[in-house]
Each structure stands twice: as C-alpha cells, then as structure tokens.
C-alpha cells in the first residue's frame, strides 16, 4: 500500500455532507438526514455497519448497492452516490461507507401513526398503485425485496412513493433455489416462509403488500405476532386454516408438522376487514393479496389490472393532502403505534405482550415497541 493517503478520484468523502438528524435504523446501519455543503441538496445517508464483519465488506450491503445501481424507476429509491469516511482510531481504522439517497420526507409507517394524516379512498389507491408498480418493476428485473413493511415505503412531500431498504433484497431465478427463509419482518412474513419454504419467489413481497394495504385503513399492522408460531395462528384466524386442500403441497414444507396450525378456521379476510374497509373492490384485492397459497396469490401485474384501480374514484395524487403537513414523518421518530386493532381473539397460544420477541432473532425479528439504535442484526446469506 502506498504510504501517503491516496486520492480516490471516484469516491467522495462523507465530509461533503453535513448530518442534520438521525432518521432511522436500517437492516444494516443507521440512516441520517444530511445536506450537501455545496449544492445544498438534502439527502439521506445510510451507514454501512462494518465493525462485526469477519468476512469483509458485508455481502448484504454489496447486494443492495449492486441492485440499486441497476434499478432506476420512479417508485424505487434513487441511490445518488457512495461516500466513505476516513479510517480513524474511532472506527478501529476501518473506514466507513455511506450510501447516499435522494431524501424522502415521510415513510408510510410514520404517516399512518399520525392521526392528523387522513387518506381518502382515491389516495389509498394511489399509494397502492405506486407500491405495486415498484414491485412489478423489481420483480421483472428478477429481484426480491424481502423486507416489505410500512416503514420501508417512503413517500416524498409531493406524494411520490419509493420502495426503500434493499438490505435484504437479492436476485432470484426460476430454477429450484435454497434461499434463507429468515427474512421479512415477522408481522409481514407470509405463511410459506413461516412454514420453512426456501424455494420462494416474488409472491412473498405481495403478501407484504397485502398487509400494508390493509394497514392503510386499520392504521397499524394487522397481524402483530410475537413468535413465528403466534404469527401463523393469527394468519390462520384471518385467512382460514392452512391445509393441503386449499394449498396443494403445503404438507411437504419442513415445518408443516412442527408448527401448531389451528384447524377448522374459516377464511374471514373480507368479514374481518369490512369494519375498516367499505369498498368492495378494495376488499376483493386484499383477499387476493392475502392468499395463503403463494402459487395462487395475485402477482403485481394482475393486481395493477384489478378493478380497484380502474373504477371511480380513480387514484388521486397525494400532493394536495400532504401539502397540509410540513413536518417529516418517519416511523423512527414517531411514538409507538397502538397495537393490535383487529386481533381481539383471546387465548391464542403464545399471545400477549409478555410473549416477547422470543426465538426470533434475525432481521425478521419482531419490530421493537420502541427503537433500539444499538440493535445488531444477524448477517445472513
């Protein structure tokens, strides 16, 4: 190595930006709001955690960079550049890397936790249309997001929706695969992952889209399990018992016999959500997104063609509604949301706040009620 500090013609130093505030905790690092000292543009900087890396630069971060360099779409967060920080004793002589993104004012979880923010039906349609459009784009590029949740859906002040946090994303192929099933935040995790499927596909992201869509009305996550077992129970209570009759081949999944699956449950997606969602088309699309069998779950293309988006009221820009709010809303900065709006079942096994995030671990662990900035996530392949 040369003795003098070399110049990196291609990689700017982080001092180019001035940090303004911490706005979030991603899968592999903290996120800051920052301002370009020269151009004065506001950006989001995501720090890549590297202290615990025995294998060098984290493959998850490299995947995110690789994926974001390729994906360029209105509904995908835009990676502007990558910055570095000098190695100092403070970071054990390991220089830090920042991903610099265009700044988005809000995230969906933050917006939903603020009762002042109200979405009408046409605006909900616009949110879902943009979300599905983003999914359609990444899935056509053979990328799985694997961490769909309201906090990862960013919305600019002009109402443009961007899928963010590709820290768990990866490329997929149509051949038989063995991916890790320890992905997706528990509350948004589809039944196939909970049952140990390792050869999954884009349908996992559409389950999350369904959970998020319902949340547009319920205002908090619809199935807040404490453990994988509990999550499966909640899913069965909403979507009906998981059996080989309605989902061919489910009995072949690794955990099908190891998990306790409630029997004789009727599917009540439309009934249970009817209290919140009055629109018949919305209920029908929700029903199709929250389909247990991943091979029969609606894909993003068909979802975009659903009547929901094509009957009055048509999707309407969020620009106007958001212009009434001039404060950034991020889940990280918001007070914890009220728990369990539609899950009133008593005595579900493992239920109750005392269950704690037992046995979760991994990036898909239970979202903590508060935030824990020091939380480290297990690195996985």
């Amino acid at each position, binding site marked *: *190595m*040369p003795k003098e500090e*070399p110049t*990196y*013609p*291609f*990689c700017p130093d982080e001092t180019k930006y001035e940090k303004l505030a911490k706005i979030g905790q991603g899968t592999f690092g903290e996120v800051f709001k920052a301002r370009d000292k020269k151009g004065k543009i506001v950006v989001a900087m995501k720090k890549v955690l590297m202290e615990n*890396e*025995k*294998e*060098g*630069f984290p*493959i998850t971060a*490299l995947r995110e*960079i*690789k994926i974001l*360099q*390729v994906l360029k779409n209105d509904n995908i967060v835009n990676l502007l550049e*990558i910055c*570095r920080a000098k190695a100092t004793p403070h970071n054990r002589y*390991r*220089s830090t*890397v920042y991903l610099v993104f265009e700044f988005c004012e809000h995230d969906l979880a933050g917006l939903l936790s603020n009762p002042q923010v109200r979405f009408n039906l046409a605006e909900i349609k616009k949110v879902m249309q943009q979300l599905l459009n983003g999914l359609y784009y990444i899935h056509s590029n053979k990328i799985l997001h694997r961490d769909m949740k309201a906090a990862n859906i960013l919305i600019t002040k002009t109402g443009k929706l961007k899928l963010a946090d590709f820290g768990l994303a*990866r*490329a997929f192929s149509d051949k038989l695969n063995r991916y890790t099933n320890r992905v997706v935040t528990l509350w948004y995790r589809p039944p196939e992952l909970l049952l140990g499927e390792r050869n999954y596909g884009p349908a996992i992201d559409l389950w999350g889209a369904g959970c998020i869509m319902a949340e547009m009305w319920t205002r908090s996550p619809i199935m807040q399990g404490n453990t994988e077992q509990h999550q499966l129970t909640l899913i069965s209570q909403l979507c009906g018992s998981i059996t080989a009759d309605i989902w061919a081949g489910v009995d072949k999944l690794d955990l099908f016999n190891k998990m306790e699956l409630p029997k004789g449950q009727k599917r009540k997606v439309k009934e249970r959500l009817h209290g919140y969602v009055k629109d018949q088309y919305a209920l029908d699309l929700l029903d199709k997104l929250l389909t247990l069998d991943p091979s029969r779950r609606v894909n993003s293309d068909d979802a975009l063609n659903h009547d929901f988006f094509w009957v009055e009221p048509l999707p309407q820009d969020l620009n106007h509604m958001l212009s009434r709010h001039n404060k950034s809303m991020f889940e990280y900065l918001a007070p914890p949301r009220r728990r369990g709006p539609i899950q009133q079942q008593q005595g579900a096994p493992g239920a109750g706040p005392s269950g704690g995030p037992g046995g979760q671990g991994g990036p898909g662990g239970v979202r903590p009620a508060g935030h824990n900035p020091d939380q480290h996530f297990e690195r996985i*392949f």
Partner: protein
Amino acid sequence: MSESETRVHFRVIRYIREAGLKLHLENVPVATASTIYHKFFREYQLKDYDPFLIGVTCLSLACKVEEQNVRLRDIINVCYRTLHKNKAPLEIGDTFWQLRESVTQCELYLLRALKFKVMFDHPHKYLCHYLKAVSDWLEPRQWEEVPVGRTSWALLCDCYHSDLVLDHQPQHLAVSVLYLALQCHGLELPVHKHAAVKWYQVFSNSISLEIIQTIITKIMAAYDVENQVPR
C-alpha cells in the same frame, strides 16, 4: 504498460484462475475477479501495490458479487497454498489473521477505488447464445465431431489474462472467440461465402471484420506473453 508489467499481470491472473479452480468456482466469478483486477490497474500504479494481494482480494470480492458462497478463510488458505507451493499449508495463527485483515482492508480499498462498480456484463452468456445458433446451422455430425464450443469457451476464458476485456463490448468478444475457434478447426459455416449478411453481423450489428481481427490479434499477443513467463 511496460512488457514486464504485462508479464506480472499475466502471472497474477494465472494465479487467480488456479486458485479459482481449486475453490471450484465457476468461470463467470473468475472472469469478474480478473476484470476487477485489470480495471484497478488501469487506474493505479503497479509499483504501489502487491499485485498478489490485489488478486486475492479481487477473487474474494468477485465471489460476493457473483453470489458464490465461499468463505474468506478458504480463499486465503487456497491462495496461500497456490502462491507458496513449497511451504507447509497455512496454520491458524498470526500470519493467517494478518492475511485476512489485509484482504478485508484491501477489499474496501478496491470498492472505493472502483466506485463500487464491480458488476460486469460478461461475454459468456452471449457466447452461449451464439453457440446454440451455430449448433443449429451446422450438420449434427459436424457439431459433434468438432469441439467448437469447448475451444471458443477456452479462448474466452484465456482472454481474461489480458486487459483487452476492458476495451471491447461483450458481444464483440464473444463473436471474436467464436470466429477464432471456427478458424482453428478449419470449419466454415454453411453458405457463409454467399451470404449477404455475414454470420457475425447476425449476432451483433456493430461488429466488423476489422474489430474481430483487432481482438484476435490481442488474444494472440496474450498467448505470446505466456511463453515469456516461467511456469
């Protein structure tokens, strides 16, 4: 680039490929490692770096980029053994940990130096498509008797000994190795002489015979370097 530098780079790429083979890597990750290596030394001076350390790091980075699940520990052990054929295998100890630390540091350095642009569109997939077409044009017996596929694939992998891979489109490289392989085997595609559009133009409309000849000349030059380097 001076002749002696060319020879150093040739040896390092040969080393990367040997280690890659022992690690059971596929051809594309090895191609990525070689491309990262050449790209790095286009921008930076050989005298400032240990090219073998850069080589090992390129290999480790390429494994991540191409989703080849290989542990850094294995890469270090295999590369050490490949470089030091007469020494005992590496034991867990200070040397191992130092080497490992060097590679992880160097990995960051490479990423920053290359602006995190470590994904490449390689000629391999294009060559596969072209070979499929050629196999349909030829008589089945001809295709079976003459190993055009294997020869062109080997030529392609050998291209990476030289930094010529940075200067040409992947489609052009694929066509050129195919052209060279057909020539080596004295094989002519049916009605080639009478066709208004040459077969290689079918694969890439921006290619010309001049480009093909330029690339082939560079490939031949790379084989010449091999003769100047000790085994």
